[in-house]
């Protein structure tokens, strides 16, 4: 379902490499100056969602698996991290790692069942699993139901960096985001990623070549879950809470919207898409439920007329791959 050109002529690879370097430089520069222009808390939230969307895009963009339940990974990691930091007194980095690990484990279990099917079936199964996790979070005592976990301490990262200082927290979040972003890029451009893309194009052929496509898909699903978990856990430290919103079906829909708007199967698309969707929610919050309606309209418009998304469209115009 990726709109990315399947094969690019060989002479464009150098142009691609340069374009990606420039794009990465621009993104880092923008992240560096953003807190001076916009409200830092807002940017940090946007970065967490951008990482979440990048994780989601790893599946839809490069393996053509549409997960409609990705909020379960964001939400579970967020709860686990918040609980570890608040109740068990973990320092933030280990709490985040624990949260991401919990999501990776959840990804391994749900993925083992879900990847046995593909396409629409896969989407429905992920919806059902995420709903199961949602109700678990409603009922489980440690999540505090409707109240969520409030007042999560930010603490000192590895005992040195005091995250309650907004500037240090900002740098910390930016580093986590860039780590996740580069991890996705590394995965996609590795030999492993090439197999994933081959599975996307023609799965039976990959199987006939002797690759165990199922294991590749499961590995991609687990990695995506872990990165989504990283986003969720970091978000819990930033917002100092974990709530049912992060694990809800609506959140699973939002990440699809972010990736769709930005451009599926592009590295920068999910980041731009997340920024667009989060800004939309932020600036249109006064219009109440109209935000939902507008999101729906954007969804429909993208699907009907703008399937490549912002970055996909730009890249196609410039004949590069971003």
């Amino acid at each position, binding site marked *: 379902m990726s709109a990315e050109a399947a094969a690019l002529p060989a002479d464009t690879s150098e142009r691609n490499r340069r374009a990606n370097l420039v794009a990465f430089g621009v993104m880092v520069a923008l992240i560096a100056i953003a807190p001076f222009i916009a409200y830092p808390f807002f940017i940090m939230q946007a970065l967490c969602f951008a990482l979440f969307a990048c994780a989601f895009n790893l599946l839809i963009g490069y393996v053509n698996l549409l997960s409609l339940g990705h909020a379960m990974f964001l939400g579970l990691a967020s709860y686990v991290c918040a609980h570890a930091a608040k109740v068990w007194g973990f320092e933030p980095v280990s709490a985040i790692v624990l949260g991401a690990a919990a999501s990776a484990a959840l990804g391994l279990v749900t993925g083992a069942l879900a990847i046995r*099917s593909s396409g629409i079936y896969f989407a429905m199964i992920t919806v*059902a699993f995420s709903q199961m996790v949602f109700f678990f979070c409603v009922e489980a005592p440690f999540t505090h139901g409707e109240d969520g976990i409030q007042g999560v301490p930010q603490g000192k990262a590895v005992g040195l960096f005091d995250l309650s200082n907004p500037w240090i927290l900002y740098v910390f979040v930016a580093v986590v985001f860039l780590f996740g972003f580069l991890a996705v890029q590394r995965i996609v451009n590795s030999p492993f990623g090439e197999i994933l893309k081959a599975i996307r194009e023609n799965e039976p052929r990959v199987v006939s070549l002797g690759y165990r496509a199922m294991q590749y898909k499961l590995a991609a699903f687990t990695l995506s879950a872990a990165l989504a978990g990283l986003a969720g856990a970091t978000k819990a430290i930033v917002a100092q809470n974990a709530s049912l919103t992060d694990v809800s*079906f609506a959140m699973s829909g939002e990440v699809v919207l972010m990736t769709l708007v930005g451009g599926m199967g592009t590295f920068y698309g999910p980041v731009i898409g997340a920024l667009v969707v989060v800004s939309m929610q932020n600036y249109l919050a006064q219009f109440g439920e109209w935000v939902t*309606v507008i999101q729906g309209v954007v969804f429909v418009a993208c699907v009907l007329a703008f*399937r490549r998304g912002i970055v996909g469209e730009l890249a196609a115009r410039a004949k590069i791959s971003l």
Partner: protein
Amino acid sequence: MNLFGHVITWPQLYGQLLIGLINGSFYALLSLGLAVIFGMLTIVNFAHGAFYMMGAFAAYFLLVLGGLNYWWALVLSPLAIGAIGAVVERLFLKRLVGFDPLYSLLLTFGLALIFQGLFQNYFGASGMPYAIPKQLSGAYNLGFMFLPVYRAWVIVASMVVCFGTWLVIEKTKLGAYLRAATENPTMVRAFGVNVPRMVTLTYGFGVALAALAGVLAAPINQVRPGMGADIIVVVFAVVVIGGMGSILGSILTGFVLGVIEGLTKVFYPEASNTVVFVIMAIVLLIRPSGLFGRAA
């Protein structure tokens, strides 16, 4: 009886069985509509919950604005919402024929957001009451329990509509055309059947089934903008368990899972919200294409 530390009384058991059957009636009607649509268009209609909610609201508007009672709503609401469905198919879904079916899924997802957002905007989160029609009020005394007439009506009506639909699709000429068009649309077109119109009408019919479920639900649950979103994910699980596109599978699984959910409320209430999804996971382990489904 005493199980898992819960004291269970017989009336409680009967009561939950009845609620399970009622929920099962809605699951069956909704998953049947999804199965019909999936069979013909190979798309998952994520707007199904929104159409169910709109069916209930149509009944409410017919009563409040038009003065038309429940029986009128039972006919007019599915017709009106089904017509909206047909328009949606013609305007939007038709354009996505030939693209990855995931795009149609995302389109209906977006439509669901629009419809639900619009209703939430005007009606908030709260519900409107819709009175039980007086012909169906009261209760039968079965000796061991009281059975409200309206609930009995919902179960019977849902069963009749479900099995009627199944009969039409499996045993009539129209159904044969439908099944043939699912297998090979080009060939059926060559025989002079207007397949695009059939696709539009099928989508409209599936949507009308959702609206009918909405009208039936209006007097039991309040008419709320969120009513569709609450039920639809469970219905998706039902569809996955039954096997996508299987008509009989969706009906049977709908009723059975409703009852199982009801029984879980008696024996182990903490799991009542998740039992359907647990069953789904187990079924997928054993049969990845669902109980009645063909291999994907």
